[in-house]
């Protein structure tokens, strides 16, 4: 079996595309698997979908090209939740709140690490942070 390519991406749909079956085409025409981590579609606003997209690398690239052609803006997920390093006190109260272990204490330095690759942008940490150091950047 060919090696599967997998990425977590954020799709921004302009208003005119919100009612189009774009994600369906990704499965049908490009044989890609997806896991929806989060989705918002609100009237008069753009649609937003956070996906983990998996498939053959060639198909993956074709699928991404298709999305771009349709006018969907794509960005890697890891860019979306950021930590304001000045505000973070490394207390660690976010650590048990994070469902994926993206926030973890280094037991030697006692500092809290933010592993962006594990972050699914669930946003639970944002309001739970006492100094509001976790910021969302959609």
């Amino acid at each position, binding site marked *: 079996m060919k090696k599967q390519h997998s990425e977590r991406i954020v799709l921004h749909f302009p208003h005119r595309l919100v009612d189009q079956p774009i994600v369906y085409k990704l499965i049908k025409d490009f044989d890609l698997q997806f896991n929806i981590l989060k989705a918002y579609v609100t009237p008069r606003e753009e649609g937003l979908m956070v996906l983990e997209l998996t498939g053959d690398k060639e198909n993956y690239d074709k699928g991404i090209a298709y999305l771009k052609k349709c006018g969907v803006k794509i960005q890697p997920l890891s860019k979306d939740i950021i930590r304001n390093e000045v505000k973070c006190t*490394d*207390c660690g*109260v976010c650590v048990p*709140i994070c469902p994926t272990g993206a926030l973890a204490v280094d*037991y030697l330095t*006692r*500092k809290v690490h933010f592993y962006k690759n594990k972050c699914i942008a669930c946003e639970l940490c944002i309001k739970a942070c006492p*100094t509001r150091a976790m910021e969302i950047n959609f």
Partner: protein
Amino acid sequence: MAKTIKEINEKIKKGQVVVVTAEEIIDIVEKKGISKTAAEVDVVTTGTFGPMCSSGAYFNIGHAKPRIKIGGGTCTLNDVPAYTGFAAVDIYLGATALPESDPLNKVYPGEFKYGGGHVIQDLVSGKDIALKATAYGTDCYPRKSLETLINIKDLNEAVLFNLRNCYQNYNVAVNLSDRMIYTYMGVLKPNLGNANFCSAGQLSPLLKDPNYKTIGIGTKIFLGGAVGYVAWWGTQHDPSVKRKANGVPQAPAGTLAVIGDLKQMKPEWLMGTSMLGYGVTLTVGIGVPIPILNEEICKASALRDEDIYTQIVDYSEAYPNCKSGSLGEVNYKQLNSGSIKVKNKDVPTGALSSYSKAREISQELKSWIKKGKFQLTEKVVSLPSSESGYSFKPLKERPIG
């Protein structure tokens, strides 16, 4: 051989003082033993950096032309109300104060984005603050309203005065209910989803001088990045709680009231803090030096996380209803391992007090003392001790009339 604070201060002046942090002393005692360490080490520096709600600051803003008597009137700083029950232009701002426009918990859980703690941090950062005041007017203070920007550098006095800080030990908070709860101990997930604690453990000032042998009224400390003092024992000081054989209280015990010049402090050590669904507070950096005057003080200063125990408390039912009872006892080594056992379940732990910042404070205070910038003070009066009979009582409610 016993030392005196005077002798230690002589060594500080001469640049010969031996200072180590409350973490470093642990290894030294392990290697060299108590008596050798007590002879060699002069000072142990502690630190803590956690949310402390009974914090606040008072200001004298100077007299306006014509004069206004804010005393007995109203005053807000960036829309956050300050207390005005003093003379004409003295005001006190509490860390938990909130603007009238804050939705509070009407939209549950409230976010509490900006309050007294944030105003204090903004002031210390050198930002201009909008002051609005109203007064009833008198013959000698005719003015009835005032709206102006103020800046910390122009204030006559800006003094941090915290009624209760530096808790000697604290509860571990858990949630036994089946819904998410929002507390001053953070967000607690249902059915023992997490366990939050709030102490620097082996770095925390009063845990390293558990019987208040050196820390007392008049002790000079690191406060918010500057020099401060212990002004009194803190509110809810409770030396009477149960203690282990090593003297360490097994539940929240002693507290300190602290004071210092806000103008000298730094915003990274006084941070406005928002507890979801609970309110606003101030995270305060405090470091206390412990002079190693004898072997007993040395031994206590070398206590480790595994020697310090605290109680697990349910914040869904027991805490709000003032029901006593612990779900178990754990030590700080267990809490810092990332998970504890509660009712046979592995529960992940989260800290509200930053251990790495506490470590930084202990190192900063150590460097001040080593460089001769910080001399120690002798306490003027001791804090009420475990033998004093002093304790923390609940309210006795009585009907009026």
